[in-house]
């Protein structure tokens, strides 16, 4: 729409009378780019109390809301239009784009981007411009406007709304009310510091009433005034020091801690308080270009390089278009893997040591029981290995289905653009066909679904144990035989991942643990609260050794348990390994030792569903509603503002390649200031991202794109300005680098995407996926996690990890080169357009299929070349030698040979020079076969001199014949080469090779180079030196050499990426290596030794620093 608008600067101030449009103050003058008069009205207001009142200034730390109100001209109401917001600050204009990002604006109307695109204009249109705290001091001016559909006139506020942001406030009471009371006092302190609270023995008792801010202010100031060294005392306490039984309430250096410190400054009479921004960490750091970010993100999120169209879009549109391209590439199998892998890094579900989750409950699933016994009876009766294998595979597939389901659910929610809260609130699970069949599932699968493809569905055939259930125990069986199933059938009450079998089993409960581990991890992963860190310094041995229900009665324990235990209670319906309502008739999941104690007082009362010696199920002061308490908890969590920051925490490592920092706790620690600085900055970024996540409607794709767009991800270079050592250290501690070590999974995906080779891949018998060695056996050695023994990724290279990288490069290089030269045309991934018969000395090269009927059926191979005067050589080669050995391995049943009869060279002056076939030099692979001919018996060359005594056109004709028993014809090569130094060669071959190297450096390493760049010249030199060395050393002319290894079979899917005729895999899932090698052999021939030289270059590139880091 904007392209029709004349370029006009919005700074033209038009005076017009203002009218009231909303309750907001400061109605702004209206103007239009067509200079006509419209009766549209605009207002922009700032509020610190959620819109109850409006003001023109605020403090930097205050949470503010800025809203605009538009009353379009009545003629435009009901039409579609675009809405724009522009900010002026410190002499620069920015504009608010859709999704909430602020982008530079040139001042030209034509370059405005809308905040809202094509919305139906209502009589009054309210737009939220900003929510959160402002980090930049001074005056911010805001304009708003709209463009009706089909109109060229932008109608806008010609004067801005101006808001002042000050660094501090001087009134401690205002500060307390606006910043301290709700978040800190009510949120962090009043839980314990109240009459009869856990901290009742302390000297500070608040009133736990959110309406009494003034009274609580008075209470605190009275307490504060009577303390010696009050400032330090309070800050030490709130950060967990000074024997604070409540542990860490305000992590040292965190936002809340800083707010508290500022408040205490004001109480101490300081006129101003300092504010900190996250900017300092990035002072002097420049960011990546949009295309560079695109490359990194494409490999990370989509497991591929960006397409030409994506690159073009981003190159033209810059950051403004980057987000849209990123969002669009968040799909497909690699994105699916990315999502599941990132979630697993936090949930550790695959680390479950229970290898069969589905045999935990013998009564829950009669269909499962029946299927088990059907398979088992068959296996027992037949004693056939296949039947036993079928039983084992079925169990494995069921277990796989259960373990992976929560990860699949998260991926499903994200991929289908559902609100991320659905990972906790979904009333369905992810089921595979094999699972669906035994749980009465409602999932629907397509015709081609495998046994372990996932679809959403509900479990409808969950049985609760009752008195009629009859089970027959059978020794040696995984499940008892169910002869009479329970009659109580329910639909399982799905609560997202929270009550998935996988999560409940990974974090099992016991009679005494009572779901606390489940509650702890729910808090940690979905609210970002580490319960165990709340009271790290609780050291009272008496309390810890207390046996009289300390979690309820001992303050040192209550501080955590008062928070933890109610949430544990909300998991009340789930027994040890996750069985729902385990008791007879499904009354509850209480432990039998509690319900019927052998000693002591019986607390249980009929109908109870939770322990009476624990806190009632609930969440932070609110008791859970009756019924499905876990569902209630899920609703509480997703409504909690911490859910958004926890989500940023959850996904941060997957994008940033670094863990989220913990607040430093001891000022005497090494690099404390740097740690604090890094932590503060990171928390600021996390909060900002969380705000955007909320504004997006909890779109995880949006959050992922914002993480990529963040300067934390895109930090690229230093600009050369001096930086402090604290700044430098902080950046290192925060993991800020443009050169992040790829995880094993990322490296595997990169190699597969770029080269088609899946190193050391084997087919997973359960999932049927081809899993790279980097994702299985080699993962831990390369810094991966297993969810059990190793839960933290290694982010930097160690010597042993470097051997993994070396092994990966060395084992992959040869098959990659072999395969890619077999591919033809645009099917090639790396060597498109390059002949493997080009050498660094090649002036001109050609090849020809020789279709002779007999070894004297000579056919001419003609090449004309324009040559400067000089010495050259003609290299005639047999390019596709093959020998189908007989059983004796000494003679060929079918063979290909090339007979060279003669060469004739016509010079520019017409003179014809004749050479016999025997005039050339050739190795032991050729032999004179009479009549001055030679025959090349194997992968071989014969070299003839060509002296160009004058410059001009030379025509070479080689008379050849094929001698063959194989079905396909002989391929003969003719290479016209210079005779100088290959290292400094300037021939066409050298140039084409260098061009290819530039391309490979770009594709594999992300480097933008030219043929004269030192990096390319180094690679070229490696190629040349390898080639010369192998020529001198008499290297065998095939990639499938006797001496050296080329482990093409280490990727179970490798051959299927090539034009292999038929199925290369046998029924046992393995290659018939003999048959496949026979097919590969002629295509692996390397008479000019260039393929193997490229393989060495490939090993170099695959082990390059830039290949291993992105």
């Amino acid at each position, binding site marked *: 729409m904007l392209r029709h608008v004349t370029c006009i600067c919005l700074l033209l101030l038009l005076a017009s009378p203002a009218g009231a449009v909303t309750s907001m103050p400061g109605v702004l003058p209206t103007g239009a780019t067509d200079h006509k008069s419209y009766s549209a009205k605009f207002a922009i207001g700032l509020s610190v109390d959620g819109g109850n009142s409006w003001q023109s200034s605020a403090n930097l730390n205050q949470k503010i809301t800025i809203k605009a109100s538009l009353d379009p001209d009545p003629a435009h109401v009901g039409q579609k239009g675009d809405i724009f917001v522009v900010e002026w600050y410190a002499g620069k204009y920015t504009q608010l784009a859709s999704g909430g990002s602020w982008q530079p604006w040139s001042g030209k109307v034509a370059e405005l981007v809308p905040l809202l695109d094509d919305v139906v204009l209502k009589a009054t249109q309210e737009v939220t411009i900003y929510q959160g705290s402002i980090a930049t001091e001074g005056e911010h001016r805001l304009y708003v406007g709209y463009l009706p559909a089909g109109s060229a006139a932008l109608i806008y506020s010609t004067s801005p709304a101006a808001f002042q942001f000050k660094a501090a406030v001087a009134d401690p009471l205002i500060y307390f009310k606006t910043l301290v009371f709700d978040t800190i006092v009510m949120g962090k302190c009043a839980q314990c510091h109240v009459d009869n609270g856990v901290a009742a023995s302390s000297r500070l008792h608040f009133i736990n009433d959110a309406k009494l801010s003034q009274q609580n202010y008075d209470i605190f100031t009275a307490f504060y005034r009577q303390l010696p060294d009050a400032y330090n005392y309070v800050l030490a306490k709130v950060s967990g020091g000074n024997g604070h039984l409540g542990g860490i309430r305000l992590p040292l250096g965190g936002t809340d801690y800083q707010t508290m410190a500022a408040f205490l400054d004001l109480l101490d009479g300081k006129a101003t308080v300092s504010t900190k921004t996250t900017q300092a960490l990035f002072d002097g750091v420049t960011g990546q270009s949009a295309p560079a970010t695109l490359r990194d993100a494409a490999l990370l999120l989509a497991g591929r390089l960006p397409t030409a169209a994506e690159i073009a879009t981003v190159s033209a549109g810059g950051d403004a278009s980057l987000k849209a391209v990123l969002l669009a590439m968040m799909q497909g199998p690699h994105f699916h893997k990315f999502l599941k892998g990132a979630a697993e890094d936090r949930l550790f579900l695959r680390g479950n040591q229970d290898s069969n989750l589905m045999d935990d409950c013998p009564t829950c699933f009669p269909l499962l029981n029946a299927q088990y016994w059907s398979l088992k009876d068959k296996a027992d009766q037949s004693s056939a290995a296949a039947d036993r294998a079928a039983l084992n595979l079925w169990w494995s597939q069921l277990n796989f289905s259960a373990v992976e389901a929560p990860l699949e659910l998260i991926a499903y929610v994200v991929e289908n653009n559902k609100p991320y809260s659905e990972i906790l609130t979904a009333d369905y699970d992810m089921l595979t066909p094999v699972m669906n069949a035994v749980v009465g599932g409602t999932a629907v699968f397509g015709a081609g679904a495998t046994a372990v493809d996932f679809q959403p569905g509900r479990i409808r055939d969950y049985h609760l144990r009752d008195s009629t259930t009859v089970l027959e125990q059978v020794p040696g069986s995984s499940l008892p035989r169910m002869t009479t199933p329970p009659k109580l059938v329910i639909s399982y009450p799905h609560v997202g991942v929270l009550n998935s079998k996988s999560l409940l089993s990974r974090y099992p409960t016991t*009679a005494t643990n009572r779901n606390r581990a489940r509650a702890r991890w729910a808090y940690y992963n979905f609210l970002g609260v580490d319960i165990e860190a709340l009271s790290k310094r609780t050291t009272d*041995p008496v309390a810890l*050794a207390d046996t009289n229900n300390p979690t309820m009665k001992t303050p040192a324990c209550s501080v955590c348990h008062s928070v933890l235990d109610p949430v544990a209670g909300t998991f009340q319906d789930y027994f040890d390994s996750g069985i729902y309502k385990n008791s007879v008739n499904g009354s509850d999941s209480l432990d039998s030792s509690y319900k019927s104690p052998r000693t002591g007082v019986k607390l249980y009362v009929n109908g109870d569903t939770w322990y009476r010696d624990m806190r009632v199920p609930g969440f932070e002061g609110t008791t859970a509603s009756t019924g499905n308490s876990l569902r209630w908890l899920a609703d509480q969590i997703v409504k909690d503002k911490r859910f958004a920051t926890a989500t940023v925490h959850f996904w941060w490592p997957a994008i940033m390649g670094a863990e989220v920092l913990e607040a430093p706790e001891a000022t005497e620690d090494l690099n404390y200031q740097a740690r604090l600085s890094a932590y503060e900055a990171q928390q600021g970024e996390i909060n900002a991202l969380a705000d955007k996540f909320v504004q997006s409607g909890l779109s995880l794709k949006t959050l992922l794109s914002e993480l990529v767009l963040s300067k934390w991800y895109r930090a690229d270079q230093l600009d050369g300005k001096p930086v402090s050592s604290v700044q430098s250290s902080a950046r290192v501690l925060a993991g800020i680098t443009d050169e992040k070590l790829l995880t094993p999974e990322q490296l595997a995906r990169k190699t597969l995407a770029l080269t088609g080779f899946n190193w050391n891949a084997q087919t997973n018998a359960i999932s049927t996926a081809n899993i790279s060695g980097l994702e299985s056996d080699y993962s831990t050695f390369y810094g991966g996690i297993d969810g059990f023994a190793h839960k933290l990724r290694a982010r930097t290279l160690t*010597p042993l990890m470097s051997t993994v990288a070396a092994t990966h490069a060395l084992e992959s290089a040869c098959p990659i080169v072999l395969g890619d030269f077999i591919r033809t045309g645009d099917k090639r991934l790396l060597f498109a357009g390059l002949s493997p018969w080009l050498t660094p000395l090649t002036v001109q090269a050609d090849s020809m299929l020789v279709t002779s009927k007999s070894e004297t059926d000579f056919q001419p191979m003609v090449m004309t070349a324009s040559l400067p005067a000089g010495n050259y050589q003609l290299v005639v080669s047999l390019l596709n030698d093959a020998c189908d050995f007989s059983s004796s391995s000494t003679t060929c049943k079918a063979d290909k040979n090339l007979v060279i009869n003669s060469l004739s060279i016509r010079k520019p002056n017409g003179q014809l020079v004749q050479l016999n076939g025997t005039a050339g030099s050739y190795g032991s692979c050729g032999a004179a076969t009479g009549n001055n001919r030679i025959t090349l018996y194997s992968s071989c060359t014969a070299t003839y001199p060509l002296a160009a005594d004058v410059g001009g056109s030379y025509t070479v004709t080689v008379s050849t014949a094929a001698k063959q028993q194989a079905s396909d014809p002989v391929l003969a090569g003719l290479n016209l080469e210079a005779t100088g130094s290959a290292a400094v060669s300037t021939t066409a071959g050298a140039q084409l090779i260098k061009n290819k190297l530039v391309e490979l450096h770009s594709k594999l390493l992300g480097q933008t180079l030219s043929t004269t760049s030192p*990096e390319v010249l180094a690679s070229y030199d490696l190629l040349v030196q390898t080639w010369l*060395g192998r020529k001198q050393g008499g290297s065998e002319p095939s990639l499938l050499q006797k001496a050296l*290894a080329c482990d093409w079979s280490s990727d179970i899917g490798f051959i299927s990426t090539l034009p292999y005729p038929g199925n290369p895999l046998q029924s046992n899932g393995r290659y018939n290596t003999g048959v496949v090698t026979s097919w590969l052999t002629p295509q692996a021939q390397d008479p000019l030794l260039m393929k193997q030289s490229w*393989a060495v270059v490939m090993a170099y590139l695959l082990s390059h620093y830039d290949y291993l880091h992105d």
Partner: protein
Amino acid sequence: MTHTSRHARRKFLQGLACAGAAGMVCGVSSRALAATTYTGKLLVNLQLTGAMDVTSFTDPKVNIAGKPVINNWASTAAVAKAGNIAYAPFAANAAFFNKYYRDMLVINGVDAQTNSHTLGVLHNWSGRNTQGFPTLTALFAAANQSALPMPYLNFGGFSSTQDVTSVTHMGKMAILQNLLEPDLAESSKKLYLPDSEWQRIVAMHKAGITTRSKVATNLEGARQQQQLYVDALNRSDVISDFAALLPATADLQPTRKAGTVTSSLHQQMQVSLMAFKAGVSLSADVFETGFDTHDNHDNRLSAALSNVTDAIDYFWTYAASLGIANRVVLIVGSDFSRTPYYNANQGKDHWPIGSVMVMQQQASFTNRVVGLTDADHNALKINPLTLQADNTGGVILKPEHVHKALRKYLGIDSAAATKLFPFTTTEDVAIFNSAG
């Protein structure tokens, strides 16, 4: 070193290793010796994850009339003693203590100050209950031979290094051999390319980083990554020496079933010792699970503990066969301990007072017990110098005391790396002073 000489050396080393003659140069790589002249102590830390009940091990408690049963074994047996070490006659303890009492120091009454696994692990293995300190094993590696290719091995569990050294996470042992010789095909043992060509590639990588590191605009984090990349290349060459000594897959210690746990502890110990022997490593965390016995405590602990004592026996036997037993220090500990009473499911819950065992052959500090607990398994204050009960001027032993004493005993307390993580307010306790 050329491919030919390297592989010839491997063959030579393999021959020596096969001879298995302790006291000879069996298996000691000439290259490794060239890389390090380190002949000092070797440290292994056994992390028993899940909180092991020490009242059935090194701090035996009997039942008290009128109070809940502490240990079922105590209803039919008394506390046993081997040398000066009292132990619980439980599981396979008797054989273990009778064989090794001369080689062990038991530190009882160590207060982890928490009942939380996460904090217990953090406190016991870093010496502090807040984040920020490395493991003792990491410090030990850093203080001695951080330049070794794999100075600090970790088979699982807590492994914070705080960047004082690099930690090598160990995975599936069966493929380790392939990694140690990256240029050799796993099955055919053919080279992928001549060694000279691989060395040229490595040299190019190093030269590339050298050039790049001169660019002033590199981010600090990028510089660190570049440096570690080159450092890894420089140190990885010697790793192949380990390949010469690493047992064939078939000769690796098998996993064992210890109750419900599948244990690889023997194998972890075997590989650790072999890495020490090869001169590529000097410090290792080995770990074992199965001790979170909230139910069926006696049966589960018996299985797990028997496997652990068997593994420790194997450890010392194997170390002796390699000729390095006199250099090895083995530390055994857990998150904390378990209640001195059973819950309704015959399990035991979390209890903050635990024990640490330090083992070394022919050491001056062994055949001793340090630290006191009462009959209810509460920690008692001891005098830091005399180690006797001292309720007025004494201290409750905490992990920081153990770490401080171990740092001193191991000779790393004044190392630069150690000084970065001081216990400034921690009392010195004469744990290793046999006169105490």
